[in-house]
């Protein structure tokens, strides 16, 4: 049997854990730059506030409902996530974190799933202070379904084989893990509405779908085939929103250079090199004349050296840049990641160039040991905060200056 442990309203719960005055009160957490709502407590959901809503648009509603508003404090959330995974590892087998707030695990042998699920739920709740739903079933996809049901009942749920069909019949296709919005229109046009319809899909019809989709269908039928989660990173993205819009190419290039340095240290820390770079520039997302500029470039040879990335980005960006627009955000992504050792040298790389590259690798690895985000912030040049985070909570668990007080 496979289990899924998923924290309910994770970000909001982390904030509430250290604020007893907020017990029973609605809480929302805003995205980077305080843009929109990314997480809500159950009380905030009950007020009809929705995830994804821009902050400026629901500000009055939040004030009227006496909602506590927080900027996202990823330092706190990451530590709470690490603690949760550590505790789960001490209670379950083969724990695989899937996202910041959910992990798959296997049941220890010889345990009764029902008893185990209840004990796991209670122990996790006591030790973490967070409410973590537990769903257990034959496959990962079914464990997701079970977890979804657990959230709406007593917090844990074991989906037994004999109950699978009945449960799938009452689960909408859109709620199935791995059925992206891309497929939804197609599935509706085929008359497939529930997860059970999906599980019973005609073999010939199924052949027309990609293999990942066919795996999902097999998993709904109790055949575990999403064995392990990919642990090799295929890409990294560095993005930022500007509190003051930028207009000139020079200003934009300055931010891109910071992204490149950030990505460079991220790759160096994992001993990876990129073969492709991707750039995105956006204007105000909520304005009607919203524009998004995109371009990508291949690197002449795989590298994790920031100047190499920047050299590839620059001509590509100059080709698509539109002067006069007020840019609100920039992102740089690196793709085609491969381990540094298997990086291919081209025929014309002489020894000295290879040696120079080795030195750069060492440098990048050294830089990579420092916090990358801090270097990113510092090198933006202006002392003003680059990101708006007006409602940031203390880092209760990682800084002595920030620990909570008790009377």
């Amino acid at each position: 049997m496979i289990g899924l442990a998923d924290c309910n309203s994770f970000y909001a719960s982390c904030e509430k854990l250290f604020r007893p005055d907020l017990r029973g009160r609605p809480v929302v957490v805003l995205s980077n730059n305080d843009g929109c709502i990314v997480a809500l407590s159950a009380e905030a959901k009950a007020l009809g506030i929705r995830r994804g809503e821009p902050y400026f648009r629901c500000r009055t509603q939040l004030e009227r409902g006496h909602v506590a508003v927080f900027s996202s404090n990823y330092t706190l959330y990451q530590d709470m996530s690490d603690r949760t995974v550590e505790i789960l590892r001490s209670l379950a087998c083969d724990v695989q974190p899937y996202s910041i707030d959910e992990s798959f695990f296997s049941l220890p042998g010889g345990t009764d799933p029902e008893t185990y699920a209840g004990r796991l739920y209670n122990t996790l709740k006591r030790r973490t202070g967070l409410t973590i739903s537990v769903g257990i079933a034959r496959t990962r996809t079914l464990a997701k379904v079970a977890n979804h049901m657990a959230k709406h009942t007593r917090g844990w749920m074991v989906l037994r084989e004999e109950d699978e069909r009945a449960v799938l019949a009452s689960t909408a296709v859109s709620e199935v893990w791995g059925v992206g919005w891309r497929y939804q229109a197609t599935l509706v046009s085929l008359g497939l509405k529930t997860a059970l319809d999906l599980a019973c899909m005609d073999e010939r019809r199924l052949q027309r779908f990609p293999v990942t989709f066919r795996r999902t269908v097999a998993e709904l039928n109790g055949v575990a085939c999403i064995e392990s989660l990919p642990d090799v990173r295929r890409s990294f993205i560095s993005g930022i929103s500007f509190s003051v819009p930028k207009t000139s190419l020079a200003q934009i290039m300055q931010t891109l250079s910071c992204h490149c340095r950030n990505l460079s240290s991220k790759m160096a820390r994992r001993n990876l090199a990129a073969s492709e770079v991707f750039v995105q520039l956006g204007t105000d997302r909520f304005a009607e004349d919203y524009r998004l500029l995109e371009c990508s470039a291949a690197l002449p040879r795989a590298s994790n050296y920031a100047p190499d990335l920047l050299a590839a980005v620059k001509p590509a960006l100059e080709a698509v840049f539109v002067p006069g627009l007020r840019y609100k955000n920039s992102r740089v992504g690196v793709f085609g990641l491969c381990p540094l050792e298997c990086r291919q040298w081209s025929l014309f790389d002489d020894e000295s160039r290879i040696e120079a590259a080795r030195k750069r690798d060492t440098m990048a690895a050294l830089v990579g040991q420092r916090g990358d985000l801090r270097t990113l912030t510092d090198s933006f040049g202006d002392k003003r905060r680059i990101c708006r985070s007006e409602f940031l909570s203390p880092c209760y668990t990682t800084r002595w200056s920030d620990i909570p007080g008790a009377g």
Partner: protein
Amino acid sequence: MGSETQTGRYGFPSPGEDCREDRLDIRSLLVRHPSSTYYLRSEGDAMAPLISRGDIMVADRALRPRNGDIVIVELDGSFCVRRLVVSGQRLLLCAENPGWEPSEAGADLVCFGVVTGVVRVFGRQG
């Protein structure tokens, strides 16, 4: 342990090589469950003289609160440190400071953690 302290190719092997133990670490005394341990700063006088204002308290969430434990609890929307006394069906939160009256807690008492120790760091002049 650091390979630079081990005798390498040159010199004499240390007779203490096989007797090396881990050096004492204060955390092994104070922190039993690192993943469920939190630190809080004492801000009141309720537990004086046992716990002083400014002391850093080590709170473990993995321990179930028992009679006589010093606990961090939620009282009127803030964290408080008290000694938990179970007398029959009643839960009492007692202050160590003789000037403070015990208060009775309901069954809905929320305990943040059990205090397993305190740390006091002395500042030095100059």
